[in-house]
C-alpha cells in the first residue's frame, strides 16, 4: 500500500490544478505511441499512426488521451486508496483489453516527462519524486486485479 506524505500530496495536487487535462492527455498518449511504437498494437482502430505528426494530430489519440488522463485525475482524489479506485479499471485492462502492465509504467514515465516540459524548473527533483511515486502507484493498482 503506497503512502504519500503531506508534502508529496501537496506537490501532486498543486501541480495538477494547473494541468490542462485535455491537452496533456493527448500529448501523453501521443508521445507513448511515438517513443514506444510497439504500444500502437492496442490502437489498430485509430486510423493514421504512420508518423509522429500523424499520431500527435490524430483526433482519436487526443480523445483517448484525454479519457486516460481524466481517469488519472480520479487517482489524485483517492491517493489513500489507489487500489480501490482502480479495481474496476484493472479488471477491464486484464479481461477485456489484455494490456501488459508494463505499458502502465511506460505511460506513467511519459506523463512525468510532459509535466517537466510544462513546468520547467518548478518540476524539482522532489516534485518529480512525488509524481514518479504516484505513477508507479497507479501502475501497480491497475495491475492489481490481473489473474
Amino acid at each position, binding site marked *: 500500500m503506497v503512502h504519500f506524505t503531506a508534502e508529496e500530496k501537496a506537490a501532486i495536487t498543486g501541480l495538477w490544478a494547473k494541468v490542462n487535462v485535455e491537452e496533456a492527455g493527448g500529448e501523453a498518449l*501521443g*508521445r507513448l505511441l*511515438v*517513443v514506444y511504437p510497439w504500444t500502437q498494437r492496442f490502437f489498430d482502430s485509430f486510423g493514421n499512426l504512420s508518423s*509522429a505528426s500523424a499520431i500527435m494530430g490524430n483526433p482519436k489519440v487526443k480523445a483517448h488521451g484525454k479519457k486516460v488522463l481524466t481517469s488519472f485525475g480520479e487517482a489524485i482524489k483517492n491517493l489513500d486508496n489507489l487500489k480501490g479506485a482502480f479495481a474496476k479499471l484493472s479488471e477491464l485492462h486484464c479481461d477485456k483489453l489484455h494490456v501488459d502492465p508494463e505499458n502502465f509504467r511506460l505511460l506513467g*514515465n511519459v506523463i512525468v*516527462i*510532459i509535466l517537466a516540459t510544462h513546468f*520547467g524548473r518548478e518540476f524539482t527533483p522532489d516534485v*518529480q519524486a512525488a509524481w514518479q511515486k504516484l505513477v508507479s502507484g497507479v501502475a501497480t493498482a491497475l495491475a492489481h486485479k490481473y489473474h
Partner: protein
Amino acid sequence: MLSVQERAHIAQVWDLIAGQEALFGAELLRRLFTVYPSTKVYFRHLGDHPDEVQLLNHGQRMLQAVGVAVQYMDNLRAVLSPLADLHAQVLRVDPTNFPLVIQCFQVVLASHLQGEFTVEMQAAWDKFLTGIAVVLTEKYR
C-alpha cells in the same frame, strides 16, 4: 540503427548541453538519488549526502562520456568499450538501473527545453540512451 533525422535530433539537443556537462550531470544525479534512492548504493564513494562539488565532478564525468557517445554514435561499441569493461568487471550496476537514469535524463532535458523538447527529440534520445545502456551491459556475461 539511428536514422538521419534521429542523429540530427541527438546532435541538436547535445548543442545545449555541451560546455555545461557538470551542471547537467549534477542535476541528473540529484534527480536520480532523490527519485530512486536505491541507486545511491552504486555511488558510495560520494558519501551518504553528496555535496554540490561531488555531484558536479561526477556528473561531469558521466555527461562527458555521453558527449563522446554523441560524437561517435555510429560506433558506440568500440568507443564505449573501456566503460563497458568497467561496468562489467568493477561497477557491476544491475541492468534494471539504466532505465532509471534514462528517465531522469529525459526529465532533465524536458525541464530545461520545455516546449522545445519535441516528441521526435524524446524518441531519439530514448533510443540513443537505451543503446548506450545496452553497450555498457553487453559484457556482463
